[in-house]
């Protein structure tokens, strides 16, 4: 792979901070330094626990397996609490969350050096996992708002430098501290006095918590007041749904579950591999692994610069970089496993470590770009949860170690990385669209906030740059549409212009290819129709709207599902619908398949009435019906509109549509050709002729 390494400016600027500022695009450095510092000091505790586990095991008198289980408790915390904590970060002031978490893990670190019982130790270790669970999501969310997107790969890669630095510092300090402590306050039976390490390691965390008080919370995308902020918060369920509908992330989850397993197994197998296969002593192993860490730090920085450069060309290429670097790890370690000599094996292992750093920065930047600001922490947390899920995907590799030895064990985990990397690469086709969608959600929020400030009629539905179609061919191509509360809009167009496709994409019956659908301020793009119905988008399909084998009564019962459980509300809605269509009351026990066409259309309208829509979308009201029935139905539609419900009416019959609608939209070949008062469209004979004569196709 061709990777242009950035060597930095030729003429070195005088000061480091000025140089660093070229990294951040001139933005202040303090937030990055503080957050990266927090990330680094979080490593201290974990590294110390890993390095001192033999001594800790002695003190608590537990088995090797038990100490392994205790140290993986923190992963369990991520698995269970990661996503909820992400939600908390998205909901409340992130800096508070970050410093509270830092305080908590500082306390956990301190207590690790104090507690006496195994049970308490478990508790404390689980609590220390909160650091990992909070740091990446919250910090990344903050960094994404502190720094402009063009620099973010670099910013994130510098942030992730905290991990190797923290590890290095911890490993460098543990030895001296235990030596000095054991010398000064030596225990009578010659045991190592390891507890002071944890006491001291709690100190930098506490200091950085204090430093974080100096930071200012950035706004999430749009500058808003506190009251407006409360208005714009995204509820848990909805955020969760959105996180699940971002296609780039969906691929990333699959990749992360595999890669997480690969990396977890790698870390624990590699040292033993050197030990048993090549007989390297503890000092040598430390050196080899330490240099490996340095390589991954180098990879980290490289990935940051290369990532930003690729991003400028196309975000999809940055995603390819992420995936191929992961494939690279797999290939390098596969080679490292089969190499006949130690030197070659180490060389490939270091190359793998280098690859292992590359994806950090660009990965975080892509996540920032495809997730709307208000739920970013949850986006990061979701990926982390899947990485932690690697605890389980790593199991087969350990089984191989037991059965076939370390060489094959190391080799057997490389498929996880290679396949995981390929999955990451495969996400590249979604990146551009997902970024546009996130941008659409942000834009919609801006419009909403401004509308509210100006006191205008609120926007109910905002569709931005929507593309949707069948079999990869777009039928609607870049539709922008705003519907305000209480509007009645006629949607007109020739056959195949994309009217029904547009409705289907809004309701979620058809997954859009790109663009965004924002309803009442919530991003509903790609949500399943059963969820958009619950939010108040109700569709009346043209033709085939009833279930032939169900009775009228059962139809009404089904239609009440979005109302939830309240019996009174259901009864009221049902009576209302039956009063509107008395003819249905006579036929409650009749199978819908035996109703006439007009009655069937009434039944679908009645169902829509029961569901209490905020936005009613009617597809082909008059299809195949007699003028008299159509007249009745149109009256009902107008009555619904009078109650304040917004209506989008798709009609073949221009006369019917324009007689009720005040606004009209004309669609041709998947694009909006006209939008304005209905009366004006009547004058546009050039457009209307195509409907009547079938031209323009």
């Amino acid at each position, binding site marked *: 792979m061709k990777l242009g390494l950035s060597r930095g400016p030729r003429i070195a600027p005088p000061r480091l901070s000025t140089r660093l500022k070229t990294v951040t695009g001139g933005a202040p450095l303090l937030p990055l330094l503080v957050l990266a510092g927090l990330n680094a000091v979080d490593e201290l505790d974990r590294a110390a626990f890993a390095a001192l586990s033999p001594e800790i095991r002695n003190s608590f008198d537990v088995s090797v397996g038990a100490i392994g289980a205790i140290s993986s408790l923190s992963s369990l915390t991520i698995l269970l609490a990661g996503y909820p904590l992400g939600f908390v970060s998205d909901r409340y002031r992130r800096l508070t969350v970050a410093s509270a978490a830092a305080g908590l893990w500082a306390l956990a670190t301190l207590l690790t050096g104090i507690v006496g019982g195994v049970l308490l130790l478990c508790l404390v270790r689980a609590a220390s996992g909160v650091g990992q669970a909070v740091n990446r999501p919250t910090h990344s969310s903050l960094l994404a708002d502190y720094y402009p997107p063009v620099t973010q790969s670099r910013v994130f890669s510098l942030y992730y430098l905290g991990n190797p630095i923290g590890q290095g510092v911890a490993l460098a300090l543990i030895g001296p501290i235990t030596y000095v402590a054991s010398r000064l306050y030596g225990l009578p039976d010659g045991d190592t006095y390891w507890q002071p390490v944890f006491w001291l390691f709690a100190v930098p965390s506490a200091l950085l918590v204090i430093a974080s008080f100096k930071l200012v919370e950035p706004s999430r995308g749009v500058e808003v007041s506190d009251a407006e902020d409360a208005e714009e918060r995204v509820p848990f369920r909805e955020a969760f749904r959105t996180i699940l509908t971002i296609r780039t992330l969906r691929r990333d989850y699959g990749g992360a579950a595999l890669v997480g397993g690969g990396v977890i197994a790698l870390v624990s197998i590699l040292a033993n591999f050197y030990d048993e296969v090549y007989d390297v002593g503890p000092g040598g192993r430390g050196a080899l692994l330490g240099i490996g860490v340095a390589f991954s730090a180098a990879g980290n920085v490289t990935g940051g610069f290369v990532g930003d450069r690729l991003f400028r060309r196309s975000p999809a290429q940055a995603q390819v970089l992420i995936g191929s670097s992961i494939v690279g790890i797999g290939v390098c370690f596969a080679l490292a496993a089969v190499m006949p000599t130690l030197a070659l094996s180490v060389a490939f292992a270091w190359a793998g470590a280098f690859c292992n750093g590359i994806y950090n920065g660009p990965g975080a930047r892509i996540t920032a770009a495809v997730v709307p600001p208000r739920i970013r922490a949850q986006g990061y947390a979701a990926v982390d949860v899947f990485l932690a899920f690697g605890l389980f995907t790593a199991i087969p590799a350990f089984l191989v170690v037991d059965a076939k030895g370390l060489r094959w064990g190391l080799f057997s985990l490389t498929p996880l990385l290679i396949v995981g990397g390929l999955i990451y690469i495969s996400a590249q086709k979604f990146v551009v669209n997902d970024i546009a969608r996130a941008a659409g959600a942000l834009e919609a929020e801006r419009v909403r906030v401004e509308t509210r400030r100006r006191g205008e009629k609120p926007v109910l539905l905002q569709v931005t740059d929507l593309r949707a179609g*069948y*079999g990869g061919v777009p039928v609607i191509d870049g539709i922008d549409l705003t519907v305000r509360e209480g509007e009645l809009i006629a949607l007109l167009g020739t056959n195949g212009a994309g009217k*029904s496709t547009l409705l*289907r994409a809004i*309701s979620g*019956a058809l997954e859009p290819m790109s663009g965004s659908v924002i309803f009442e301020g919530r991003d509903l793009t790609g949500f*399943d*129709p*059963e969820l958009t*119905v*619950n939010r108040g988008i*109700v*569709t009346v*399909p043209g033709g*085939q*709207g*009833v*279930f*032939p*084998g*169900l009775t009228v009564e*059962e139809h009404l*019962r*089904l*239609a009440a*599902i*979005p109302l939830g459980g309240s019996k009174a509300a259901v009864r009221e809605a049902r009576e209302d619908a039956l009063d509107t269509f008395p003819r249905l009351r006579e036929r409650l026990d009749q*199978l819908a*398949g*035996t109703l006439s066409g007009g009655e069937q259309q009434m039944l679908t309208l009645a*169902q829509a009435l029961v*569901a209490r829509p905020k936005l009613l979308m009617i597809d082909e009201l008059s299809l195949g019906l007699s003028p008299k029935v159509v007249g009745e139905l149109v009256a009902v539609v107008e009555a619904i509109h009078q109650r304040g419900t917004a209506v989008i009416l798709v009609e073949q019959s221009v006369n019917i549509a324009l007689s009720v609608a005040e606004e009209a939209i004309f669609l041709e070949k998947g694009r909006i050709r006209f939008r304005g008062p209905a009366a004006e469209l009547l004058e546009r004979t050039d457009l209307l002729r195509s409907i009547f004569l079938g031209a323009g196709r």
Partner: protein
Amino acid sequence: MPRRDHSFRRPAWLTLPRLGIAASAVAAAALLVVADRLEGGLPLPFTQRSLPAGILVLGLVVGSLDALLGMGLVVLYRAGRFINFAQGQLGAFAAAFGIALSQFYEKPLALGILAGFAAAALLAALSELAVVRRLFDAPRLIVTVATIGLAQVYAALTLAVPGVFDRNLNNAVTIDVGPEFVIRPVRFEGGSILTLIVVPLVCLALVGLFRTSLGTSIRAVAENPGRARLLGISVRRVSTYTWVIAGLLAATTGVLRAVNPSAGFSYGVIEGPSFILNGLTAAVIGGMTSLPVTFVAALALGALEQSVLFVTGDSGDTNLAVFAVLLVALLLRRRQVGRAADARRATGFVAVRAVRPMPEAIARLSIVRAVRWGGGALLVLLLALLPALLGPSNLDLANSIVLVAMVALSLTILTGYGGQVSLGQWALVGVGATVGAVLVERGIDFGVGLLLVVALGALVAVAIGLPALRVPGLFLAVTTLTFAVAVDTWLLKLDSLQLEAPKIVRPLLFSVFDLTSGAAYYEFSLVALGLTVLVVRRLRQGPAGRDLVAVRDNSRAAAAYGIREGRTKLAAFAVSGAIAAAAGYLYAFQQELLTESAFSDRISLQVFTIVVIGGLGSIPGALLGTVYVLCARFYLDEGFQFAATGIGLLALLLFVPEGVGGLVFRARDAAVRRLAARRSIELPSAAALIAPAVEEAT
């Protein structure tokens, strides 16, 4: 319809099925009482025997078990309009798992059974999530085929149970459940009593379930999933719930079977399709929708089965009786109101992708011609030289592959081009083999025998195909499967054919070619396969194949062009039956002897998986699929065989619906595109040489 004046007005609750059920209950009770009172039981006409009441009651017990299975099938059919061939195997797994658990940990059986229930529910939910849900938009036939794959995966799991726990588990468990009593001449133990109590209760509970809002949702989703979603019904959740319910039903079936001495239990037994036959037949009689009718029909079938068994003592006869009942039920099946949309969704392999021919401009290039002819010649040469490379056992395998590939090609015509699912193709092979063996036994010449067998195969296939003209494709699968079971257990009984020494001697062909050696017979089979390939190719390229595909894809439009649907379909049945029977004939000579298990209905299902794995309607696909499945059968243990074919089938259905053969063509098209780009040849359709699957109209 003119209104007739009824002197008696039937009240609304007194529907016809309910009347029928009440009537049959009264009749059954009367029958039982009479049988119990009479000395020796109910006298049977045309026989010297009489039927004691105990046999009828035993029939009811066995029928109850089938009823449970049938109701599970009905629940899933009502929810998703497909037939779940895995229902029986899931129950068998649940029972084996539960009983093994309780034995291994020496805990009470009830605990184990509870775990078995949980496992079945979990497995059903997983199957739904991983497989069925992904096929949501697929034609229902595809989902039905997927359940065949699921059944094989469940079979692999069932076989794995003893290995996972302890190979020395007490096989053939006897389970002591409560009291016992005797109705001449049968002793009924607690398990039977339990069955007679539990199953009617389950039936009532299910009827109640369909009245709840979940039940209404299930029906709504089945009728029009798109519309149901727009009403706020989560189609996925409904589907998962339905599968969990079906899983629990399956577990109940499996457990009751295990505690029933009449059915019995032992580890590692794969029951195969015959296991679900009666339940399926009952469900078909119930129109795949009515739970009570299914229930009663299953009881009646059970009684019929036990009576036949009592009288003739031959389980093959009972299967034949069931086959007859099923045929009658299918032929009497009425079309129901407003099911037009179903029919569209149910029939036809719409997902089959057509392979387009190579563009002429490309095909004319010398390099392409060289690759085509040279490659073809090389392949033929390699295949012909195989005997020199292989040892005797591998050569045997190769010969089997060649012959089974012919069977797969017969399915390519019928299922691939014709869209007619036949799960009984292997039974046709069995017919060919057995009849051939009989003919040779009677001293009939090899060539003449082949001709006779071909004619017979065509005839039998047409007879099976006749109901296909009336019933939608899904039910044809049921008919052919029943046929397979009936043939397996009834027709191919060697003693009934009076074959003294079932050793078949290979002939001296045209008095010149001695086919006795394995290598010679292999070459002979290869020639037969080559001819079959040519026939199938010719057929597809000619007008007959065109008609067949037209009827498959849009029978109405085809009719508008003057294509006769019935004749076209039957012709496909005839050709495919002829090929299958011929393959069977050759197979008999290859094996040189006939064993009873050679033509089991289980293999019939596996043969069908061959063409799905290979890719329906693709000749190379059928060949490659045969290689895959037969190698798996030859080289793997039984459990892994099921896993390999089952998972292979599912993976292909989910990820590569065009099958292995489609992959071959994909590679070819990529090469063609590259070539076209280099030679700068304009290809209007080069972007999509494989036509995209037809989108379901919305």
